[in-house]
């Protein structure tokens, strides 16, 4: 027993001695036989949900690395799982990735070992949610906008402004929007209100919807209080929202392309648009744990995750945009140029990507995220 413990500690000492926190992997060796990934549901498919959507089986055959997936439902779960340890990779969104980097849970990536890095979308290569001080902490995986979904029978023309969900008004069918619109049930929705105010109340001087001082924040909350009078129920779960469009008489709401694609697939009369004010969005990054037990397989997976056929199939499956633009056009996967346009590939500039609001910001003092949470709870409760 003692010997084992001694062996354990000395192995640990050697390991930590050899790999200080910022060291990168310099060469990929032979695969360790497996790789453990924390991912969003639907992100890593092996043909078990729908047969055509499989980007794991061939990788396992070619690399000899068995892929073990642990799905997580929220960014918080992902951070918690990575803090627990035992995982090699995580597909983190912008509101988790910086926390993982700040918490030293993920390690820098040596992009020279990932040949497909050169094919990554130029707009994503140095994105601030995975690049800190010029160091890359992961490979981009998928991104998407939070679009405005509307019922085409009520709106013959796409709405041009988010005002349909923020202010009381008469919709093109002659009835009020009260009780017929929805909003996202997460505090990050405060950013959507702030973005709306960037256009409609420029005197507030909002430069980023994720960096709000007290006055700007208060204005956003006031706007959300108006929205509360219009919204019967906030949406939280993609499938409940789809049900609300079908059975609850909801005709307009912020949403993900995922729901739009599924509803259109069922023949339901909806479409989506990005109104003039722009939209918020999410971008996910494959990040590698600081103590990854299977670094070689991890690098092989990161390289594989940027293959254009995987990216194409995933973007069809998830209704999102590939991190590798060639996936839209090279025909190696199921995605097409039209499909990418529909998912919002050309709207990158209009999108403010999710980041966690923190108190330190360029304008000095900003309202941190934990207050967004408690105040948004208050707004939904009618305060």
């Amino acid at each position, binding site marked *: 027993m003692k010997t084992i413990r001694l062996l354990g500690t000395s192995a640990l000492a050697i390991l930590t001695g050899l790999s200080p926190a910022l060291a990168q992997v310099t060469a990929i060796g032979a695969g360790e036989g497996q790789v453990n990934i924390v991912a969003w549901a639907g992100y890593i498919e092996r043909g078990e949900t729908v047969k055509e959507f499989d980007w794991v089986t061939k990788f396992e055959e070619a690399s000899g690395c068995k892929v073990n997936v642990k799905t997580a439902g929220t960014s*918080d779960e992902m951070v918690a799982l990575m803090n627990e340890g035992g995982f090699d990779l995580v597909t983190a969104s912008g509101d988790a990735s910086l926390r993982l980097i700040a918490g030293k849970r993920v390690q820098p990536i040596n992009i020279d070992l990932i040949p497909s890095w050169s094919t990554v979308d130029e707009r994503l290569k140095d994105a601030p949610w995975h690049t800190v001080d010029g160091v890359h902490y992961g490979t981009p995986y998928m991104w998407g906008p939070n679009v405005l979904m509307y019922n085409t029978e009520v709106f013959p023309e796409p709405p041009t402004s988010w005002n349909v969900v923020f202010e009381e008004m008469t919709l093109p069918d002659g009835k009020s929007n009260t009780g017929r619109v929805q909003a996202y049930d997460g505090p990050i929705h405060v950013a959507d209100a702030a973005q709306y105010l960037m256009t409609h109340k420029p005197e507030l001087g909002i430069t980023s919807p994720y960096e709000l001082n007290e006055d700007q924040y208060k204005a956003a909350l006031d706007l959300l209080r108006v929205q509360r009078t219009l919204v019967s129920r906030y949406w*939280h*779960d993609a499938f409940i929202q789809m049900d609300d469009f079908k059975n609850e*008489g909801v005709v307009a709401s912020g949403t993900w392309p995922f729901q739009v694609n599924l509803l259109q697939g069922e023949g339901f009369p909806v479409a989506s648009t990005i109104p003039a004010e722009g939209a918020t969005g999410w971008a996910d990054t494959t990040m590698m744990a600081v103590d990854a037990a299977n670094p070689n397989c991890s690098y092989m997976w990161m390289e594989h995750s940027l293959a254009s056929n995987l990216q194409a199939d995933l973007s069809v499956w998830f209704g999102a945009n590939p991190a590798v633009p060639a996936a839209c056009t090279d025909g190696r996967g199921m995605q097409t140029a039209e499909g990418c346009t529909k998912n919002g590939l050309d709207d990158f500039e209009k999108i403010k990507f999710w980041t966690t609001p*923190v*108190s330190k910001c360029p304008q000095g003092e900003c309202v941190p*995220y934990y207050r967004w949470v408690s105040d948004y*709870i208050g707004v939904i409760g009618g305060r």
Partner: protein
Amino acid sequence: MTATLPIRGAGDRLSGLFWRRPGVLLALLIAPPLLWLGVVYLGSLAALLMQSFYSIDEFSGVVVEEFTTKTYAELLRPSNFDIIIRTLLMSAAVTLGAAIIAFPIAYFAARYARGRWKAVFYLGILLPLWSSYLVKVYAWKLILAKEGILTWAAEGIGAGFVLDAVLSLPGIGGNSLSTSFIGTWLVFLYVWLPYMILPMQASLERVPLSMLEASADLGATPAQTFRSVILPLAMPGVIAGSIFTFSLTMGDYIIPQIIGTSARFVGQAVYQLQGTAGNLPLAAAFAVVPIVIMLVYLTLAKRAGAFDAL
């Protein structure tokens, strides 16, 4: 002249030990559950309590590990206090509704159902408990939807105006049943009803028939008999059932997320505050609220003799 049986192995020696020292057996049997109760259960409760006396730093959002009652004071902020009141009112309404609906059912089962009917009764009550909770809640979402079967049926029989009148009630009404507090209440009622019926039926079965006859012989009307004989004797069962419905409603965070106006209940607030918000102290303080309320409730229930019926 004592006959000693030969010892055949370790098993015999062990049972011999247990026979000579019953305390050893007892200690062995209760040590694991005691450990579980002490360390895992009470330990986590203590950790929770400790967290609730920390606070979050207003500027950095970092938890300050110093004793303070500031976090509890935050519970009194209007938006937080709303959540507690909302949850309390809902729990009380669900309990009251469940008691009223469950009583006739339990009474029928205890007094009149016999043989096969009794089996049907038990099956009918327990069957919903065996199916998935989520499936039931989603099914109710469809039933209560604006374009759901209930609205359709109400309009079909010309009672659409009744539904509209109910939904226009201020505070508890809404755009449709599935997006109003009435809907949340209905679903809570359905999901927790069996927990009210079963203890109620158990206590009603213990009401001696002779007492009802005596009451009638002494000239009491059926209403008087119900008020002065049946209800007091069945009260422990009602209270036992109400403990279930009350505490289950207090702690639930899934039903109000799917059915209702999205306004938070205590369980949801805890879930959300301990997440990205990283506001563990406030989440812990919120979690202490139902515990305190239930302790008060149980004390009152004990005084009313609810535990004699269990």
